[in-house]
């Protein structure tokens, strides 16, 4: 399958990329890792007339802890996340996620920014970034702005970026003492999208859940948090009964579509189990385990 014809640009600076994007407004797509866009173009699901390839913007590849947050350049490869010591040590939920995105070959091309900007509820980073309460940084002709992750996903494959903006960075707040996180994904085989997956980031005060955010993968048209499940946990002891209640709440508020991966009831129940497993792991990690 061969994609439709397009004009190709390979800018070497962000300013050049922004100027090309403005010039071709409406017709252009940004090409990041291309691991979602190129398959979509081969199926002619996407037929952009202009591609602006930002892979030569090496300035957008970095993973750095800056004060109270981790800054990740939009063009950082997924494989780099997997290998980064700081991610393995302090951002365990992110590390869990990076290890299960697609497959190792895809992770050598795929980027963190692309995974988020694509706004596909089946992608893994949206749930993780929702759980982390991350911030997205976007740059446009009028400068830079930040967008809270809760406001970023506006529809299926739709995000809050303006047509002339490029996602440049993702900021993840540094988890405070007593925090733990985990990502649990159920998939038919490596490389497939999740049947369901759950990202949990929480903080314990003793054995009481003092803070928690939960994101769900591939069980809604728009990447979603699980507010009822969060409420079921908040202020309560992290015991088996509470965790089961949170799992059931997530199953009820999820909104999966039936497809080859299963029926609605099946996906809801997998969601219940994924949420429970992620909470259990996050609690164990918050208490200093692995």
């Amino acid at each position, binding site marked *: *399958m*061969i*994609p*439709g*014809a*397009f*004009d*190709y640009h*390979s800018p070497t600076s962000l300013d050049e990329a922004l100027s090309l994007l403005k010039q071709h407004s409406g017709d252009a797509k940004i*090409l990041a890792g*291309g*691991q979602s866009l*190129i*398959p979509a*173009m*081969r199926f002619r699901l996407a037929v952009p007339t202009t*591609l602006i*390839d930002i*892979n030569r913007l090496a300035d957008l590849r970095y993973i750095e802890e800056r004060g109270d947050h981790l800054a990740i350049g939009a063009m950082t490869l997924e*494989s780099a996340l997997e290998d980064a010591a700081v991610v393995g040590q302090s951002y365990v939920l992110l590390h869990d996620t990076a290890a299960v995105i*697609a*497959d*190792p*070959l*895809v992770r*050598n*091309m795929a980027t963190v920014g692309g995974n988020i900007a694509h706004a596909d509820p089946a992608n893994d980073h949206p749930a993780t970034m929702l759980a982390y309460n991350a911030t997205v940084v976007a740059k446009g002709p009028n400068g830079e702005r930040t967008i809270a992750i809760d406001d970023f996903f506006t529809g299926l494959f739709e995000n809050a970026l303006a047509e002339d903006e490029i996602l440049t960075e993702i900021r993840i707040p540094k988890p405070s003492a007593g925090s733990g996180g985990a990502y649990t994904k159920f998939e038919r085989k*490596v*490389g497939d999208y999740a049947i369901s997956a759950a990202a949990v980031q929480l903080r314990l005060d003793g054995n009481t859940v003092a803070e928690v955010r939960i994101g769900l993968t591939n069980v809604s048209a728009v990447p979603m948090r699980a507010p009822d499940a969060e409420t079921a946990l908040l202020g309560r002891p992290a015991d088996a009964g509470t965790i089961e209640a949170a799992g059931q709440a997530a199953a009820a508020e999820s909104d999966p579509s039936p497809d080859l991966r299963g029926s609605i009831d099946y996906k809801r129940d997998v969601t219940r189990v994924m949420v429970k497993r992620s909470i259990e792991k996050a609690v164990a990690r918050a208490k200093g385990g692995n």
Partner: protein
Amino acid sequence: MSEHEVTVTINGEKVTKTVEARTLLVHFIREDLSLTGTHIGCDTTSCGACTVLVCGKPVKSCTMFAVQADGADIETIEGLAAGGELHPLQEGFWEKHGLQCGYCTPGMIMSAKGFLAENPTPTEDEIRHGISGNLCRCTGYNKIVEAIQYAAEKLQASEGGE
């Protein structure tokens, strides 16, 4: 529609060609460079039959445009048997029966070459993780894992001997 001059180093040889922007790297390799050892399996970024090394990293060449590879160093299965002598990975697949139909083999070998360069002494689990982007419908994978273990040991031994 734009056309672009692309220069790549492929298996050590520098070549320049003009390609349409939409030409996928795998089509460039197979049709423009006549290196048909790199296979097309699924066309959906699932199977890994088209795996090649781009600047040392194994990637799916069906999910990258040739124009993106301008300036890159590319290695395909044809680059492995230097002077007609099998590479330890090829020898491993031969000795351990790491293939039946052989369709996935070039991709498997290029993936393995990529991760062995980073981790020359992988555990069995690490090998299975390393080839998890490559599908094989014949072998059940055990023989492939053994083939890669064979190659890793042989490569280690030859390095130790230097």
